[in-house]
């Protein structure tokens, strides 16, 4: 690489994962000089999506942030004999296999940030087709809108009314602070509240498992807050409150990187850092990389990208998230859940009497993440051992025993996190957190926002980027009206006008 790189920066960011990219974009956006580098030859770090081939390679080579990788090819299913290891690998590039898959609430933190910052123009989303629940071992769709409630065959007429009434009450809750319910249920659980509404068992399951996403011990306030979050995200884009980024979650860090670059941030991939040192007052940090020394006022680093000399400061890397990834030739659940060639669906699973949970995201080709006719099943749970398959066993059992899809490929891996990433006072480097177990990006965004505010106390975090037509090009009169910025038809009209000007009287 020809290195005509500047040597001094306001901020150097190591790692192009979600939180790092947010910070890089935010700094560049307010005019800071930013160098954004990654030791890998791809964007996104543990937040990236990979082709099938690249994904296998990743599992074969454990790294600091990803380990315990394994994958298995299964016998081609009788119903789909055309899908073999070879045919899958032939379409390797058509896959976007996520390491950290997530969905976004339509009115949640991520969507709000993307809209507020105008980064939304770099991304496209697919509204999830169904939010599911397991009821009596059967996978059913949770009605998510008036039309869902109207059309569903799983609820009786009276149940429909009760569900709508309950949700409307939740939605209206809080408008009146002296709400009777608020007083009566303060300090009690959400489940108790639900029972007091005399709803049927099916509706209770629906609310607890899929809408409020609660367990029996969740407080009334938590349950209410989560239900409201779900409801607030309805009716915005599709039939469910959730969105999934087209072509996989790996697109999202790249969107932030693009904004960083548009505002002048410089990008280098496949560039590792040997060491970082700093002046005694920690006002300047020196980063040595590929025989060069780069100076920066601040450095932000992903836990997996710390140079070996510094990593010990952050404690040991421990299993953090256990992941399973399956490629199947048939979707989970019935035809209703997979209309028109497969749904992009979400399911929250519970085990150990609600003590443990996992999240399942099914992707069909509509997500842009796999070829038509195939389905990706992402299973995620907080890790409690070095064996991701064992951590997920309870959940795979629930999923595959009764609803068995034709699995062609399965993979497991562990995402790690340092034990004391937060207690990094020993170095002046800001270390981001490893991907948390969460549905949306709330924690990751909060992390990025927090680090940004520590570095740039008084600056706005990702203010709206102007649209191209609002920007004044150097040397241009800002109030001048450029002919090219007029609507095309008006331009044509004015052109005609000019030509005809000599021949007619124009009433001005």
């Amino acid at each position, binding site marked *: 690489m020809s290195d005509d790189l500047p040597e001094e920066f306001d901020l150097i960011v190591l790692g192009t994962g979600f939180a790092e990219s947010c910070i890089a974009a935010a700094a560049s956006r307010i005019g800071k000089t930013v160098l954004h580098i990654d030791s890998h030859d791809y964007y996104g770090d543990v937040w990236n999506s990979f082709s099938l081939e690249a994904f296998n390679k990743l599992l074969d080579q454990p790294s600091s942030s990803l380990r315990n990788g394994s994958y298995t090819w299964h016998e081609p299913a009788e119903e789909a004999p055309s899908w073999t290891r070879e045919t899958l690998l032939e379409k390797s590039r058509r896959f976007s296999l996520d390491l950290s898959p997530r969905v976004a609430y339509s009115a949640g933190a991520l969507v709000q940030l993307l809209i507020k910052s105008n980064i939304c123009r770099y991304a496209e*989303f697919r*509204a999830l087709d169904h939010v599911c629940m397991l009821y009596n071992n059967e996978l059913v769709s949770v009605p998510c809108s008036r039309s869902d409630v109207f059309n569903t065959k799983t609820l009786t007429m009276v149940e429909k009314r009760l569900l709508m009434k309950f949700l409307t009450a939740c939605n209206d809750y809080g408008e009146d602070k002296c709400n009777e319910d608020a007083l009566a249920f303060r300090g009690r659980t959400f489940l108790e509240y639900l029972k007091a509404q005399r709803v049927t068992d099916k509706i209770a399951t629906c609310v607890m498992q899929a809408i409020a996403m609660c367990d029996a011990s969740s407080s009334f306030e938590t349950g209410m807050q989560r239900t409201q979050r779900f409801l607030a995200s309805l009716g915005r884009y599709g039939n469910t409150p959730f969105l999934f980024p087209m072509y996989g979650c790996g697109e999202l860090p*790249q969107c932030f990187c693009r904004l960083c670059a548009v505002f002048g941030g410089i990008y280098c991939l496949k560039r590792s850092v040997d060491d970082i040192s700093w002046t005694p007052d920690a006002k300047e940090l020196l980063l040595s990389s590929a025989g060069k020394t780069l100076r920066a006022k601040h450095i932000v680093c992903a836990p997996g990208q710390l140079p070996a000399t510094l990593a010990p400061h952050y404690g040991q890397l421990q299993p953090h998230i256990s992941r399973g990834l399956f490629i199947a030739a048939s979707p989970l659940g019935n035809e209703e859940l997979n209309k028109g060639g497969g749904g992009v669906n979400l399911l929250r699973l519970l085990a150990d009497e609600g003590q443990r949970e996992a999240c399942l995201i099914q992707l069909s080709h509509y997500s*842009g993440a796999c070829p038509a006719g195939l389905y990706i099943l992402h299973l995620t749970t907080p890790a409690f051992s070095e064996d991701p398959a064992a951590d997920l066993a309870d959940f795979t059992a629930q999923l595959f025993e009764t609803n068995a899809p034709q699995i062609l490929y399965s993979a497991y891996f562990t995402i790690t996190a340092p034990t004391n990433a937060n207690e990094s006072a020993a170095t002046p480097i800001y270390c981001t957190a490893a991907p948390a177990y969460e549905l949306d990006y709330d924690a990751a965004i909060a992390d990025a926002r927090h680090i940004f505010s520590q570095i740039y106390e008084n600056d706005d975090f990702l203010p709206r*980027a102007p649209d191209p*037509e609002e920007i004044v*090009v150097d040397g241009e009169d800002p109030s001048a009206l450029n002919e090219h910025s007029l609507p*095309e038809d008006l331009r044509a009209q004015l052109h005609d006008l000019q030509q005809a000007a000599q021949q007619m009287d124009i009433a001005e």
Partner: protein
Amino acid sequence: MAKTYDYLFKLLLIGDSGVGKTCILFRFSEDAFNTTFISTIGIDFKIRTIELDNKKIKLQIWDTAGQERFRTITTAYYRGAMGIMLVYDITQEKSFENIKNWIRNIEENAAADVEKMLLGNKCELNDKRQVSKERGEQLAIEYGIKFMETSAKASINVEEAFLTLASDIKAKTEKRMEANNPPKGGHQLKLTEIRTKDSWLSRCSLL
């Protein structure tokens, strides 16, 4: 709110640093040429609406944001692109040689049916020419794509190039629509188009 165009095409500019991609972009969108806007930051695409056969076509043309410099163009840049202008500088042999690499990059990341076109820019600098027009034509034939020599500075062929690319994409799009096979994606939704339609609470209020 109302849509005032019939088609929206996303086009990309690709090629080495310094071949004049941004200048081409400004020549087409603003009919301006100014070497200082190379340093203008914050602009990542420009829009111009053109009219072809009575159809209004909104062209959204994306620049590389400098990410071509260390070959770190994000894969996301290629998503949804319907047309790509591959640009080299006729006075820089290297930029012409790199076209092959860029094409490989496109094949890896862009949709298979993306419409491509090759542009040899800076054709006003004939005395410094390192790449003959014939070689440009030859390469274009090799990849089965159209070719033009352009000059953003002297305003040669820039308009023509974009109109040609747009009209090829339009033909392809209409053919696909006639075959009742619209571009895939069911309902891909842009975040900017918030609809508040079927929420729990929206309803006609009367009685």
